[in-house]
């Protein structure tokens, strides 16, 4: 069965020349978009049209286009990664939109994620948080026997669930406080649940939170919006663990 065609769409999109530019919204009209095409394909078609018209194409981040890399962003119609759950923008399809609709596209908005151009934001803040403690630096020796370190099934599962974070930044974009707590909690949790990660747990929690605060992310008020908008459904129970890890570290000083 052929996919339905959306005859006409209005695309209201944020245009900003560079980091110093103030930026503004511009609205474009696009015709005959298949509901089977992905959201980014729609933007590709729009960009083609802009190039033909002699205009500057819209800059947006994308890479793998299969929901793994965490490169694509976009705040679409008031939601991070658009009107679908457990998907990244590249996995969002045009069947989620209605004919004649005005689609508003904005970049992630946060002090720690400055806009570079149009819809592209600088997410190196996440890398800086990881560099502050999201790793294991103690020597763990050569490759051990598969069962040399026993790990409970539930711990392994929780660790893997937290490790599913792709660092896209939707949690920050969706949070009313632009807080990075879900991201940091996922990175702290996937190590905190495993014996190798426990060795440096205190320093990790302390340093990553200090870096998060320094970079200008907001604080967590437990609204839970991040979990809903997270393409990997990282649970906010990780945030409770991060709070626990951090308080433990501070009170043992």
């Amino acid at each position, binding site marked *: 069965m052929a996919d339905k065609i959306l005859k006409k769409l209005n695309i209201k999109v944020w245009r900003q020349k560079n980091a110093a530019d103030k930026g503004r919204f511009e609205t474009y009209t696009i015709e005959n978009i298949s509901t089977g095409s992905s959201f980014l394909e729609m933007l590709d078609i729009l960009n083609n049209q802009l190039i033909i018209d002699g205009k500057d194409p819209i800059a947006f981040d994308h890479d793998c286009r299969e929901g793994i890399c965490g490169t694509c962003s976009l705040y679409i119609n008031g939601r991070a990664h658009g009107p679908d759950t457990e998907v990244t923008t590249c996995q969002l399809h045009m069947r989620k939109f209605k004919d004649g609709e005005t689609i508003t596209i904005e970049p992630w908005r946060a002090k720690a994620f400055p806009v570079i151009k149009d819809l592209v934001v600088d997410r190196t803040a996440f890398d800086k948080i990881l560099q502050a403690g999201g790793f294991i630096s103690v020597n763990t020796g050569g490759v051990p026997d598969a069962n040399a370190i026993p790990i409970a099934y539930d711990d392994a599962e929780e660790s893997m669930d937290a490790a599913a974070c792709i660092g896209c930044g939707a949690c920050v974009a969706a949070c009313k*406080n632009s807080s990075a*707590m879900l991201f940091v909690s996922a990175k702290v949790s996937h190590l905190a649940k495993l014996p190798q990660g426990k060795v440096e747990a205190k320093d990790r929690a302390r340093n990553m939170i200090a870096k998060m605060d320094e970079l200008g992310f907001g*604080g967590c008020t437990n609204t839970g*919006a991040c979990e809903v908008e997270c393409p990997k459904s990282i649970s906010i*129970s990780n945030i*409770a*663990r991060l*709070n626990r890890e951090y308080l*433990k570290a501070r009170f043992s000083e």
Partner: protein
Amino acid sequence: MSKFLTASIGRKFIMSISGLFLVVFIAVHLTVNLFLIFDDSGELFNLAANFMATNPAVKIMEPLLGLGFLVHILWSFFIEYENWRARPVKYDKKNTGISSSWASRNMLILGALVLVFLVVHIIHFFWVIKFNPEAMSTVVVGGEHMEDTYKLVADLFKSSVAYDIFYIFGGILLGIHLSHGFWSGFHTLGLSNKNWMSRLQIVGRIYAIVVAVGFSVIPLYFLIKF
């Protein structure tokens, strides 16, 4: 220590400790207040009020409670300001209703409205009892002279429908504030995990309903009965 108090989690730690302390206070306050509707002669409530006014433990807790309120209120504005600064350019279109509850996003507004209620409430009762007891009549309960606190409350609620509605509204606002605040406090202290999160949310909601209904039912009782 100062580093801890200004760190994002440290700030929230202060909020949740003071908030959960106020949660305990509200439970005590509601328990005493409910005597208002179980004895129309007012003896039971007067006895309870007199006990609260003269008990040494309560005397110690009173300034602590004031401090708890002060910290919770002042810190909330500080936190909200810091969080507001984290997003200098706001979104043009937001669709936040799908991903979070209204109460969780508007704790400051709810808190500020509760604060307005609190100020009026203190002027009505606490201020009179504490600093202007001459304005109150006295009553003898069980051979002991005491201030007629029951009359103070009952007179206010009987005097105008507006006061009753104001107090009903205050109770409901507090309930909505607690529907998010209760479990959020535990979550911030790290006293939660994937199992306990939903349990705390359920307990929090029940507590919020008990508080909202409990406080609203008192003016409602006077409104209907008298």
